[in-house]
C-alpha cells in the first residue's frame, strides 16, 4: 500500500527581511532592447512571451535601445522628467506636513513616478483614468494646481471635496481623474464599464485603469479582465507591481513563479510586462496600448515592474518587514535618475537644469502650501461648513437628512 506523506501548507515569504538582503532574482528581468515589439493588432495569445519577459528601452548607460525605442520629442521627455521631479518634491513636502499634523494621512509614490506620468502623456484630453491612491503623478503631469491638491489634503475650506474624503482620495473630473475610493480594486471594473460606455456611444475616448499588485487578488480584478475581454472594451488595464502590498510581498498576491501580465493572457487580453522605472518604455508601451484601444483592437493589460521605495503610507513603518536598503538594491533603479541620465546623454538636460528645476519646484510647492494653508488645515479646523456634510448624499436632500441637519443645529 502506498505511503502518503503529510501535506504541508505553502505560505510564500519574501527572500529579504529586516537585517538580510532581498534576492531580486525572482524578478524575471530582460536586457534593454531584448523584448520584441508585437504589432498593435496582435492576438492575445501571441503576447504570451511578452507576459513573461520585460520590455525595457533604457540600458544601464542611459541609452535608448531596441524595438520599443522610438523618436520621442526631447521636449516631451523633459516635461516628463520635470513632472516626476515635481511629484517627488510634492510627496516629500506633504510627508512633512502630515508629520506636522496639518493632515491626518498621506501616501507617497516614491519610485513609481514614471508610470502615471508617461501614460497620461500618451493619453488624450477626454480619456478617463481610474486611479488607485498612488497615482498623484496623473494630476501633477497635467499641471493640476498643487494648491487644489493640497486643499484636499488639508480638508480646508477650499477642498473641492468639502472635507468628506481622506487625504489623497482626489477627484478631478476635468483632468480625467476618477474619484478615488478607499475600497481596493473597485475602480478596475468601473474603468471597463466606462470604456464600454464610450464604445456604446460610438465615442473615441478610452479608459485607463490602475491597480496595485496586492489588489489583483480582489475579485474585481478578475471581473474587470473578464468584462474587458468579453466586450473588447477600449481600456488599458495597468497593474503596478511595486512588490509590496503594505507588508505583504507580491508572492502573497499570487506572484510567485508567475507574473501579473500572465493573468491578462489567460483572460484573452493582449498583455505586456514592462520596466516601470524606464520612462521611455512606459511611454512606448502606453502608446501601443492607446493605439490598440483607440483602434477598436481591444483592451491591453500591462504589468509595470517597479518598487515601492517609500513606506506604504504615513501610518506604515517598512523597517518592520523588509530590509532598510531594499530600494538601493532594486535592479531597475530610480526612474528619475534613469531618465535624467538619458536626457543628459542626448544633450537635452544638464545637472545645472536638474538643480535649478528642483529649486524652482521646491519654491512652487512651498508657495502653494502657504496659499493652501491660508485656507486652513485639519489642525486649524478651517473646513467647509458642517451643513455641507448632509449635501450630495442624494441629488436632492430627503426629509430625514434635512431633519438631521436641523438636529445638528446647522
Amino acid at each position, binding site marked *: 500500500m502506498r505511503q502518503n506523506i503529510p501535506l504541508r501548507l505553502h505560505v510564500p515569504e519574501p527572500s529579504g527581511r529586516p537585517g538580510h538582503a532581498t534576492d531580486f532574482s525572482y524578478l524575471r528581468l530582460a536586457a534593454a532592447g531584448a523584448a520584441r515589439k508585437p504589432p498593435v493588432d496582435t492576438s492575445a495569445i501571441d503576447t504570451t512571451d511578452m507576459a513573461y519577459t520585460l520590455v525595457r528601452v533604457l540600458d544601464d548607460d542611459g541609452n535608448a535601445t531596441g524595438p520599443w525605442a522610438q523618436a520621442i520629442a526631447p521636449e516631451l521627455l523633459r516635461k516628463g522628467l520635470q513632472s516626476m521631479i515635481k511629484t517627488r518634491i510634492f510627496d516629500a513636502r506633504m510627508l512633512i506636513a502630515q508629520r506636522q499634523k496639518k493632515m491626518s494621512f498621506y501616501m507617497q509614490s516614491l519610485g513609481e513616478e514614471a508610470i502615471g506620468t508617461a501614460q497620461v502623456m500618451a493619453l488624450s484630453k477626454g480619456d*478617463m483614468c*481610474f486611479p488607485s491612491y498612488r497615482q498623484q503623478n496623473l494630476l501633477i503631469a497635467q499641471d493640476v494646481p498643487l494648491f487644489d491638491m493640497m486643499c484636499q489634503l488639508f480638508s480646508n475650506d477650499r477642498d*473641492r*471635496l*468639502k472635507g*468628506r*474624503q481622506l487625504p489623497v*482620495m482626489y*477627484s*478631478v*473630473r476635468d483632468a480625467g481623474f*476618477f*474619484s478615488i*475610493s*478607499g*475600497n481596493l480594486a*473597485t475602480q478596475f*471594473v*468601473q*474603468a*471597463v*464599464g*466606462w*470604456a*464600454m*460606455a*464610450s*464604445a*456604446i*456611444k460610438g465615442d473615441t475616448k478610452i*479608459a485607463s485603469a490602475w491597480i496595485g499588485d496586492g489588489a489583483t487578488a480582489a*475579485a*474585481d480584478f478578475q*471581473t*474587470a479582465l*473578464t*468584462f474587458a475581454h*468579453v466586450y473588447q472594451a477600449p481600456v488599458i488595464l495597468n497593474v503596478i507591481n511595486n512588490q509590496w502590498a503594505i507588508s505583504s510581498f507580491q508572492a502573497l498576491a499570487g506572484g510567485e513563479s508567475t507574473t501579473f501580465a500572465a493573468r491578462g493572457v489567460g483572460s484573452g487580453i493582449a498583455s505586456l510586462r514592462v520596466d516601470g522605472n524606464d520612462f521611455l518604455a512606459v511611454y512606448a508601451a502606453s502608446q501601443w496600448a492607446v493605439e490598440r484601444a483607440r483602434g477598436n483592437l481591444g483592451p491591453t493589460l500591462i504589468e509595470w515592474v517597479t518598487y515601492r521605495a517609500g513606506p506604504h503610507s504615513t501610518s506604515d513603518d517598512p523597517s518592520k518587514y523588509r530590509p532598510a536598503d531594499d530600494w538601493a538594491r532594486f535592479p531597475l533603479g530610480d526612474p528619475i535618475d534613469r531618465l535624467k541620465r538619458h536626457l543628459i546623454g542626448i544633450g537635452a538636460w544638464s545637472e545645472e537644469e536638474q538643480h535649478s528645476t528642483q529649486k524652482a519646484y521646491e519654491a512652487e510647492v512651498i508657495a502653494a502650501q502657504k496659499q493652501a494653508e491660508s485656507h486652513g488645515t485639519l489642525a486649524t479646523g478651517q473646513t467647509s461648513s458642517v451643513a455641507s456634510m448632509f449635501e*450630495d*448624499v*442624494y*441629488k436632492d436632500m*430627503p*426629509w*430625514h437628512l434635512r431633519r438631521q441637519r436641523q438636529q445638528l443645529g446647522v
Partner: protein
Amino acid sequence: MNMDDTSLKQKTTPMTMIQALRSAMDVMLERDDNVVIFGQDVGYFGGVFRCTEGLQAKYGRSRVFDAPISEGGIVGAAVGMGAYGLRPVVEIQFADYFYPATDQIVSEAARLRYRSAGEFIAPLTIRMPCGGGIYGGQTHSQSPEALFTHVSGLRTVMPSNPYDAKGLLIAAIECDDPVIFLEPKRLYNGPFDGHHDQPVVPWSKHPLGNVPDGYYTVPLESASVFRAGAELTVLTYGTMVFVADVAAAESGIDAEIIDLRSLWPLDLDTIVASVKKTGRCVVLHEATQTSGFGAELTALIQEHCFYHLEAPIERIAGWDTPYPHAHEWAYFPSPKRVGEAYRRVMGTMQGSHAGDGAATREAR
C-alpha cells in the same frame, strides 16, 4: 393609487407585472439614448422571467445585452457607465444573489456623488426579483431590503402591482440617485394574498393590471393608501400588501393598508397621518424580523406618533431563520398570522409576540 395626469389620458392595456416592467424599460429605451440594459440572460433570451423579452431585437445589442455571471462586474461596470454619462438599468437575477455586488453597491454606487462632491454620479437602477411564497428555498426567496435601506445614498423601491411597477420603474430610471428596484416575483403574474391553496387570479382580472401604454411615473417617496380604514394602520409593501388586505377582510377589522412603494427614503407624511388617525399600527414584511426594515418603521412611528398610539406596535415578519423549502407556508406570514396581529392590536385577542417575561420563560 396615485394616478398622475399623464397616465389618465392614455390608452391602457391589461399587463402582468412582468409586462409592465418590460413596458417601462421599452419606454425608457425609446425616450433616452443613454439608457442601457444588461444582466445575466437579459439580452437574446429576454430574461429568465421574460422581463426584457424583445428589447434586444428592438434596440440592438449595444443597448440591451447579456452579461457574464458576475454580480460585482455587472454593478461595477454600470457604475463606470454612469460616470461616463449613461443611465444603466441592470438586473441581478435574484435578490438572493446581490451579495457579490455588495462592495460596488455600498462602497461605490451609493457613495460616488458624496465622495466626489457631485463630480461623478451613479444614476443606476438595479432590478432584483425578490421575495418568497414560490417554494424558492433559501436562495430564491430572500427579501434583503434592510441591507439596502441601511445604506446612505441608496433609494430602495418595491412595487406591488403592474401599474405601480411601470410608473415606479420609469421614475427609478429617471432618478439621478442609485435605485435598488426590488420586484416581488410572487406578484409577477398575479396578486397573491397568501392563500396558497386557492388558484391564483391573473393580473388581467385586477384593476391595477390596467397599465397605460406610454410614459408616466409614480413618484418616488410616495406611499399609496391601498385600502382606506379607520381602526388600525398597516405599514407594508410588496406581496404583503395583498396578505394585509385579505386579513382585513377575514378579520372584519377596518385596517388602513399603506403600500410604502418607496421603502427609503419613504413618504413619512402619509404614514404619520394614518397612524395619528387610527392610533394603532401593524408593521408587516416577508423579510426576517430582527433588524429588518420593520424595526425602522416601528421606531419612526414611536417617534412621530407616540401620543396617538393606543396599543403597542406589532411587527409581523418572516421568522429569524434562513428561508426554508418544505416549510414555506409556516414561514411566509399568512393571512391568519396577520389577522391575529390585527386582533391583538385591537385588544380583541390575548397574547403578544412582544416576548414578555412569561413568554421568554416558556420559550426556554
